[in-house]
């Protein structure tokens, strides 16, 4: 037993040596990506990045050089995510950082990112805490995902537009159910602030939201999964619009528990980052409204979206499950377009090129850079309002990408 153990150790060492020697290549442009590969979001985002890189290389690369994507797993652990940045910067000597998912991991990466100040195009992490940590000076930092407060505001804009089109819809009373972690409580803070503004006739929700209330719940993803006490409070409040900010695992049980206690708001909205597999197949899903960046239905109205979908399915033999797939694709394509435009890898040039780059993305909107509350280079600022109809996600707002009209009111 002892001998075989030594053998195992030795073979590990040998493998380590071989592995470290194999890292030689010519001179590609190196993009370093950090994603949680054990999670579907990170895995598919990585897949989509690989697709984008493959397309770029097929078309002759960038500035005449091939592009190499080097991916390191963050494991959803802050210290691992930070170490990944260090590895990409010092061992692989990448030219650019891309990646996403989890504000907790991203916060731990920010000190390292600030140290290297390489051009960074980050897809995920929506917490305004990350924006605070990055700070106003970081001109090399580009952030694609709308910040938490931007998401909230964009729904206000959306509902205003929808109510204008459909006067029978009323969203005077809003109830927000939020998971008690960072994602949920940040959403709550953002809503509470917007409700405050709306009561003074200001902000995105002015004119539509008159009253607001919230209650927290423990997400099934964190070991909870019993929403009834929260739903009971919602039912007593009797809102026109009920919205929950939680995770995909909460979607169906919460719907079912709402039905069994007889809670039937006119608008039942969910704002998780992703939805469970086959949610649409569940009869409870009909007329559920969702907030998001993307839906497969965009294939009907956007050529880029259609192209992305088909190419992804062809390359990876699976369907993109969440918006992190098209977002990962966008992440690479946008960066590549900026580099192309700059015509060089020189940092200042790439930064100013990216600032003025416009990219028609598979997410159904054009990506362009503008300042947000703190940082200079924010990408998307708006989310979309979608609705499950006949088991499919449809875009109902913004109207230019709408695949159908809203069905109202929600009923069991």
């Amino acid at each position, binding site marked *: *037993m*002892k001998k075989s*153990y030594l053998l195992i150790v030795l073979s*590990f060492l040998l*493998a*380590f040596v071989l*592995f470290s020697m194999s890292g030689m290549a010519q001179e590609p442009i190196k993009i370093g990506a950090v994603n949680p*590969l*054990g999670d579907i979001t990170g*895995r598919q985002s990585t897949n989509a990045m690989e697709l984008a890189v493959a397309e770029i290389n097929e078309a002759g690369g960038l500035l005449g050089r091939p592009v190499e994507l080097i*991916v*390191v*797993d963050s*494991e959803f*652990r*802050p*210290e*691992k995510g*930070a*170490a990944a940045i*260090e*590895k990409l*910067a*010092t*061992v692989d000597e990448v030219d650019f950082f891309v990646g996403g998912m989890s*504000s*907790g*991991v991203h*916060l*731990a990466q*920010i*000190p*390292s990112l*600030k*140290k290297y100040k390489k051009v960074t195009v980050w897809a995920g992490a929506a*917490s*305004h*805490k990350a924006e*605070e*940590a990055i700070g106003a000076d970081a001109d090399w930092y580009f952030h694609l995902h709308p910040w938490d407060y931007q998401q909230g505001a964009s729904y206000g804009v959306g509902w205003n537009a929808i109510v204008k089109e459909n006067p029978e819809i009323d969203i005077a009373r809003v109830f927000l159910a939020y998971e*008690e*972690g*960072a994602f*949920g*409580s*940040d959403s709550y803070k953002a809503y509470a602030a917007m409700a405050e503004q709306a009561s003074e006739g200001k902000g995105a929700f002015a004119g539509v939201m008159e009253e607001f209330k919230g209650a927290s719940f423990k997400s099934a993803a964190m070991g909870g999964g019993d929403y009834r006490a929260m739903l009971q409070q919602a039912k007593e409040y009797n809102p026109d619009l009920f919205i929950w900010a939680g995770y995909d695992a909460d979607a169906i049980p919460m719907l079912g528990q709402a039905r069994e206690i007889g809670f039937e708001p006119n608008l039942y909205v969910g704002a998780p980052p992703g939805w469970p597999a086959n949610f649409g197949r569940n009869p409870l899903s009909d007329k559920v409204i969702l907030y998001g960046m993307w839906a497969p239905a965009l294939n009907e109205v956007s050529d880029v979206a259609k192209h992305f979908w088909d190419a992804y399915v062809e390359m990876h033999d699976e369907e993109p499950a969440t918006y992190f797939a098209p977002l990962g694709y966008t992440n690479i394509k946008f960066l590549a377009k900026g580099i192309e435009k700059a015509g060089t890898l020189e940092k200042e040039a790439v930064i100013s090129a990216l600032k003025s780059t416009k990219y028609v993305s598979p997410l159904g909107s054009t990506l362009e850079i503008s300042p947000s509350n703190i940082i200079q280079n924010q990408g998307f600022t708006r989310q979309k309002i979608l609705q499950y109809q006949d088991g499919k996600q449809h875009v109902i707002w913004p109207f230019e990408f709408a695949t159908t009209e809203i069905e109202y009111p929600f009923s069991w």
Partner: protein
Amino acid sequence: MNKKAILIILTALAVVLPFFTGAYVLSIFISIFVFLSLSLSWDMMLRTGQLSFGTAGFFGIGAYASALAVANLGLNPILSIILGGLFSAIIAFALGFVVLRLREIYFAITTLALTHVFSVIIRNLSDITGGASGTILPNAIFNGDPKLIYWAILLITFMVIGISEMFKRTKIRFAINSIRNDETTAKSSGIDVFKYLLLVFVITSAIQGVIGAFYAQQFAFVNPESTFSLNFLLLPIAMALVGGIYTTSGPIIGALILGLISEYLKLLIPYGHLVVYGVIIVLVVLFLPEGIFKSVKKLFASKDNVGSDINAQS
């Protein structure tokens, strides 16, 4: 003598490592030292016979004490690391009077429950702590300079190793071994069992607090989810057990081996490396039940007197 020379060489190597390697390797070792210190501190408590599941909890409150002192009071980050340790020590001292009455699984589950209580309190006191989204700091300690950060954690780790050795070389060793073996005999030999339990509980909690504070300053943020993560409980335990408990060398070896393996596996097998990690842990328990350190020691010892091997019972 030979052993001493090896130790000096290893120490010197650890100190000069930053001159020969880059930020990535340093960041791996920084993280290994963090877990190594936690692992040793957990083992020190275990030497009294008390299985603590509170490692993550004291790590977390140390981290929060330090981060909040820097963010709200403008305390110097280095001082705040000491403060983190002090704060954890004070909480441990206060709780110790009640918690240290408990034994075995009751002590274990209570310390684990305390971890959750800490994190719920911190999550709900959002005015002070930033709530679920946490608190960020303007800057990482030493401006994020990996060399300085490395030397800082190395210094802390040496201190923790020193404390662990102190536990091995002084009276304390006799007290805690005695308590672990049989409390009644310990008491009847004049050992103030509670006093020693409290001493060890406070010291190990202080270490955990210091490490938590360091971690918070290294990454310049705290939030309940990351800071009270059960990783800070389970990984140190796994490291100590894989390396070998009741020793100083065991947790060190365990932390180095598991820390390096986990990082290496991740690069080798991007998808599903945790399965292999789990398999390694299971294999170690099955085939090296006393941990790597003691097993290797035995392997060398058995060369001297072959045949005196005691057959393991099947």
